[in-house]
Each structure stands twice: as structure tokens, then as C-alpha cells.
């Protein structure tokens, strides 16, 4: 069942198109990773999904309802954590958590609240004024996890957390998934997305350039190979689909387009393979491929 559906979403601020055709879907029980450089339109998309911004064109639907018109109805079933959590300086963390949970409606889960406060090691008796960025994020996370939502929307939720707390966050997300909840996770931290997400979407300059499961996307990218042969490999440079060759004695490391892997292996096996290491592409490679190309193009280079 589709929980969230975004179709040809466009958002214009003055003359500038912050979003220029964003498409993706999120099914029930799925974790969708939303990645892209700063200013690509991740937060704008999320704010449209929350009914805080009005889409210029296209549609954004959650639970089959319109994100703008049925905002309140939708919000009964979602929990949102912004990347930059601004809280009321003269309220305590505990007060803010209660307020936020209460405002979402539904039943308040007192036991969960205490449990998550403990897990995130938050002192709820302190005024929000005294909290660091990470602690403010913890307040929003505790409020989100201790409410009984069907869809969680996280906008770079761990940017201020330490690695231990990042771990706790990942556990909480995984638990939510096991309970059948859906998650939209926007993030820069690719290892996190890689660990948690079933599918990812890469957004660049307001357009969704790629969506799919990690293995689908890996198909589009290159495998890292390290090969040691008895004799030096001839004409490796001329082979299509081979990149970034570096020679280190008898060992050669390079990247191969996944669809050219077969041809490349056939080409090098006659030279007598002594050692072969292959590594699947990381999300980082994927991301860098889109984002890095952009930089190279900007520099006038060609890849």
C-alpha cells in the first residue's frame, strides 16, 4: 500500500524553481532515504508534504489525502523531526515533549516517553535555552518516537548527535520499521541511509535524478576492482567502461561500469590473475557520481 505519493512536484519562490519535478513513492513499512546536497530541495519537499508550503504544481499525497488540504487529518498519523530544531527557550525539554505529543493528538504513551528520554540520555528538567543543538534534536526525537505515528518524517535528524546517539536513533528507526511503520529519512550521512533505507532517492537542483532500491542503483554504478596479474594488462585504457586506473607495481585498481563487468573480466583473465578484490559501490560513490559530475562540469572537465 502506498503511504506517500509525490507527483511532478514543483515549487516556485519568485522566479526561482526550488523544486522542478520531484517524483517518488513510499510504501507501507518501507524506509525511504532522501539524499542530496544542501539546497537541492529536500527540506522544501518535506515542508510541502507537511502542508507548511503550498505546492506550485503537482501533487503530494499522504495516506491518499492531499498534503495541503487535509494537513490536520494527515498529521494525526505522522511524526516529524526538523533538522534545525528551534524550541521555546523558557520551557523545559519535558514540557516541550508533552506539548508536542499532546498537540499531535492520539493517546499519550507515558511509558514510551520515559523510555525514550532514558535511551537518548536527555535531561528533561532543563530549559531549552541551555540545550545544545544535539539536545534540542533529542527533544524532537523523543517527542516523535513516543507518539504513535504511522509515518515518520526526519529531516537530517542526526546532524547534531554524537555517534552513540546516532546509533540509538538507528535502533529506534529499525524498531519502528519492525512495527510496520513507514519512514522518510532525509540525510547527508550516507552510511546511515545505506544502513537503514530500503530505497533511496537522489535529488539535485530540485529534480529527483534517481530513485530505486540500493541494488537497483548499484546497477547503475561502478564496481571497484583491485587486480594483480602475472603479466601487465594490455590496453586497459582503451576498454569502454573503465575509469580511474591507478597502477601500483603489479597491482592495478580501477572502477568498472557494472554492465561492462563481464567484458572487462574476459579481457583481463588471459593475463593470469593472481589476486582479485572487488568491492560493491557504496552509496557515497553513487552520490559522488551525481554530485561530483556536477562539480566537474562546473570546472569544465569531462568524465
Amino acid at each position, binding site marked *: 500500500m502506498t503511504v506517500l505519493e509525490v507527483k511532478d512536484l514543483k515549487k516556485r519562490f519568485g522566479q526561482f524553481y526550488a523544486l522542478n519535478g520531484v517524483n517518488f513513492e513510499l510504501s507501507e513499512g518501507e524506509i525511504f532515504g532522501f539524499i542530496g546536497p544542501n539546497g537541492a530541495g529536500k527540506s522544501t519537499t518535506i515542508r510541502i508534504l507537511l502542508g507548511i508550503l503550498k505546492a506550485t504544481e503537482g501533487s503530494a499525497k499522504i495516506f491518499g489525502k492531499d498534503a495541503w488540504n487535509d494537513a490536520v487529518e494527515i*498529521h494525526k498519523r*505522522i511524526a516529524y523531526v526538523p533538522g534545525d530544531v528551534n*524550541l521555546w527557550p523558557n520551557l*523545559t525539554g519535558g514540557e516541550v515533549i508533552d506539548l508536542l505529543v*499532546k*498537540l*499531535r493528538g492520539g493517546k499519550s504513551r507515558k511509558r514510551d516517553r520515559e523510555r525514550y528520554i532514558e535511551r537518548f540520555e536527555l535531561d528533561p*528538567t532543563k530549559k531549552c535555552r541551555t540545550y545544545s543543538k544535539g539536545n534540542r534534536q533529542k527533544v524532537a526525537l523523543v517527542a516523535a518516537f513516543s507518539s504513535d505515528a504511522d509515518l515518520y518524517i526526519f529531516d537530517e535528524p542526526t546532524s547534531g548527535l554524537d555517534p552513540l546517539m546516532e546509533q540509538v536513533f538507528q535502533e529506534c528507526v529499525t524498531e519502528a520499521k519492525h512495527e510496520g511503520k513507514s519512514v522518510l529519512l532525509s540525510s547527508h550521512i550516507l552510511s546511515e541511509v545505506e544502513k537503514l533505507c530500503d530505497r533511496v532517492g537522489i535529488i539535485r537542483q530540485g529534480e529527483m535524478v534517481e530513485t530505486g532500491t540500493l541494488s537497483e542503483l548499484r546497477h547503475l554504478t561502478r564496481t571497484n576492482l583491485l587486480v594483480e596479474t602475472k603479466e601487465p594488462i594490455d590496453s586497459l585504457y582503451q576498454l569502454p567502461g573503465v575509469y580511474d586506473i591507478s597502477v601500483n607495481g603489479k597491482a592495478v585498481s580501477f572502477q568498472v561500469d557494472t554492465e561492462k563487468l563481464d567484458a572487462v573480466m574476459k579481457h583481463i583473465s588471459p593475463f593470469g590473475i593472481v589476486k582479485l578484490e572487488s568491492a560493491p559501490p557504496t552509496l557515497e560513490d553513487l552520490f559522488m557520481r551525481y554530485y561530483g559530475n556536477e562539480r566537474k562540469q562546473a570546472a569544465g572537465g569531462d568524465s
Partner: protein
Amino acid sequence: MLRSMTKHTGSLAKFMLRRDRIRIPLWLIGLTFFTFIVPLAFDQMYESQHERSALAETMNNPAMIAMVGHGNLDNYTTGAMTAHNMLLMTAVVVGLMNILLVIRHTRADEEDGRLELLRSLPVGRLANLNAALAVLIGTNILLALIIGFGLYALNIESMDLEGSLLYGAALGGAGLVFAGAAAVFAQLSENSRSATGYSIAVLLIAYLMRAVGDVSNDALSLLSPLGWVTRTEAYSNNVWQPVLLLLIISIVLFILANYFNAIRDLGAGFIPAKPGKRNASPLLQNPLGLAFRLQRTGMIAWGIGMFVLGISYGSVMGDLESFFEGNEMLEQMLIGVEGYSLTEQFIPMLMLVMSILATVPPVMAMMKLISEEKKHRVEHLLARTVSRTKLIGSYVLLAVINGFVMISLAAIGLWSAADAVMEDGFSFSAIYGAALAYYPAMLVMIGGAVFLIGCLPKLTGVIWFYIAYSFIVLYLGGLFQFPEWVGKLSPFGYIPQLPIESLEPLPVFFLLMIALFLSAFGFKGYRMRDIEG
């Protein structure tokens, strides 16, 4: 040792001056402007000694003494009058300036981590505190000199050079005492807000001790720095000893602040921050409760302020008649109506001032919604099951109640004080009715704020200009003899002048309709637009 502790004090002071290159001049310009304009106005309004003595009569009651302190009422020259009416109030404002500037450069910088950055450089431990104190000493000396020589330069007969310099020095001295108090609290308290809070509390206690002391027990007001300020008797006896005392106390406070700063860790304080509530009370857990909670302190302060304003107006009622006699300027501003005493004719003008002032807190309450939006905090609510209508509706409800409470407090204050000092007091319903007559105009202003928030969120500041316009045009309209339509551009211009005029239902109805329409458009706009930030 001391040298290394204060290394780079000079460069930090220069840096602070650069950061405050607009802020400090603005304070100084504001303070000197009001200090200079008042004696000039007094000199023109009360030309003869007879008029001034009449005013002195109205000042001779406990309420006025509690407000502005003792003055030289026997020889009420323009100078004595200025010192009596202005010196204490100005000293309070100077104290406030010093508190805000000191905390800004000490605990606030420390709390935000900027001081840590500086302290990692070869900068002495006490350098920042002493740089801030140096800046404030310079500012207060400058203030004392500008006011001292400036008042003398006004060339008013009763304002000689010595009195003027003493007037300035009393202000500067009082400023330094509160700079010192703030510097001490900046060491004691862990966060800048409570440091400011404690310092302002000291300022208020000093004022209240003087007020109670001046009315009942002189010894009590001799314990208050603000009591010393009025005892300089500038332009009458010119007593310099209080200024000396102010300076001694401020030096003691400076040393104390340095001592506390030297023995504590960066970021630490001596007053432990008490833990707050672990859970939110049920009252807080809805948009209305949150909106109220965020503004509670400010609203209470405004409420007290409105009540005190009402009391201070009411307390002069008993002596108003004698005050009016021979004051042409005020007579010109009030329309003469047969059958009503001048005191009663004065009521509508007081009501106008009080109602426009009472419009400020509800409009502020409304504007809080915009500032919450700009700080990205409304999205916490809108991302949950709070509709936009409910959100803006909560603020409107709060503003509407706020306005009602404010104008009521002012009216009750006025009535109770007038009743206490007048032989033949007003009826409560007359006063309260005259005040409430302005409520529809206040609602139009609130409606205007709602409209701007919903439809023109970038132009919300316009409402303040409109309120200021209403005040200037209607308060000074009679004096400058503006044509009538100028006043009719403000909703306050349609309010009948109770009790001398009678209440007409039609304007009230139209004002309510306008308020309703503006709000309706505001609600609609707010539902349709993007939330900023």
C-alpha cells in the same frame, strides 16, 4: 599577575565599542533628547511662577511623591520642576541601559560561547569584564557631560551650570551603580536572562524602597541609590555628596564583580540554576496555553504597568482644577463644555492615552505569532494536528482578552485612585464605561494586525505606525488644530468622548464590523499562504 589577568582589556573595549557603535549612540541620543525637551516645554507651558506653584500644589500628594520623589515645591522654578519630574525617571532608564549593556557584553557573550573563543587567545581572565566596565564608565561619563553642559546650554534662567552638571553627574553615577550591580549578577548567575532579571529586580526594588521611604520613612529611601539621586536637589540646594556615594558604591561593586570573576570557572555561576518542570501542566498542552505561557511574564508586566498608569492619572484628579487654572496650553487642548467640570472633561483625553497604550500589549500578543513563525517554531505545531485556523485563532483570542484586561486594569486603577483623592469622586460605571468605549477601536487595531499577519506578513510592522499615528493625531490634534478628517483616519477618532458625549451605537457597530472583516481576511490569508522561515 593582575597585568596578565587583564591583558588585552583595551582591545576588547575597542571591539565592544565597535559592536555598539549604533546602540550606545542611540541610547545617548534618546536620553538627552528627552532630557532637553522637557525643560524647554516646561519653560513655555508654565511661564509665570504662579502657574508653576499651582503645578507644585498638584504634586504635593502621596501618590506623586511615591512616583517622582520629593522636590523643592516651595521654590518651584523650571529647573526644580525638571529635576523633580524627570531626574528620577531618567535615572531608572539610565540604570536599565547600563544593565542591558553590561549583561550583553558579559554573561550573554559567555553563555553563547563567544567568550570561550576569546579566552582561548592570549586574553586575560578579567579582560572582558573590565573592558565592558570601561566602555560603560566612558558611556556614563559622556552622558553626564552631554546632559550637564547641554542643560546649561538651553539657557533657561533657573538652570545654572552647577545644577546642570550635578543633574548629569547624578544620572551618570546612578548608571554606574547599576552597571556594577549587573556586573556582579553576571558573575553570580549562569545565564544572561536571569542575570538581567536579577539586575532589573534590584533596580525596581531600589525604586520601590525609595517610593515607600519618601512617603513614610526617610531612612528606607536613604538605603536606595535612587533615593540618593533625588537627594542631590539639583537646581535648588545642589548637594554633591550623593554623587560621591554613588561613585564609591559603584567602585565597590566593580571590585566585587572582579573578585567573583577571578575565582570562578568560565561558564559557571554561583546561583545554581534550579531544575525546571519534568512534565507540562495540562494548561500548557494546547496552542492557546502555549501562546499564553510564552508571553505570560510580559503580559503581567504590562498589566501592572497599565494599572499603575491608571493610578497615577487618578491620583492627580483631586488637584486638577487648580492645575487647569491658568494653563492655556491644556485649555486649548480640551474643548469647553457647559455643565461638566474640567476634571470630567479631562477624562476622555486620559482614556484616549490609556486605550492607545492598552492597544500595545494585545497587538504585541498578536505579533508574537509572526516572530514564532520566523523562528521556525510554528512548524512544530502545524506539523501536528493543529490547523492554521486554530493556531491564529488562539492568538486572536489571547489578544482580544489581553486588550480587555489591559483597558480594564487602567480604568480600575484610575477610578480607585481618583476615588481616594477626590472629595466628590466619579462613579465607577462612568469611568469604566468611558474606558470600555474605546475597546471597539482596540479591536480594529487587533483586526489590522490579524489582517497583516494573514495577508501581508512582510509588512506586519505597519500596524505600529498606525498606532503611533493614532496617538499623535488624536492626542496632539487639538493642540496643532489638525482638520477633523486627519483624526477620522484612526479608529480611535470615532469613539465618543464619554462622559461628556453620549454613546452612539452606529460607530461602535461599524468599528466592530471592520474589526471582524479584517480578521476574516487575515484568517483566510493565513490559511492560504506559505509559512515562512
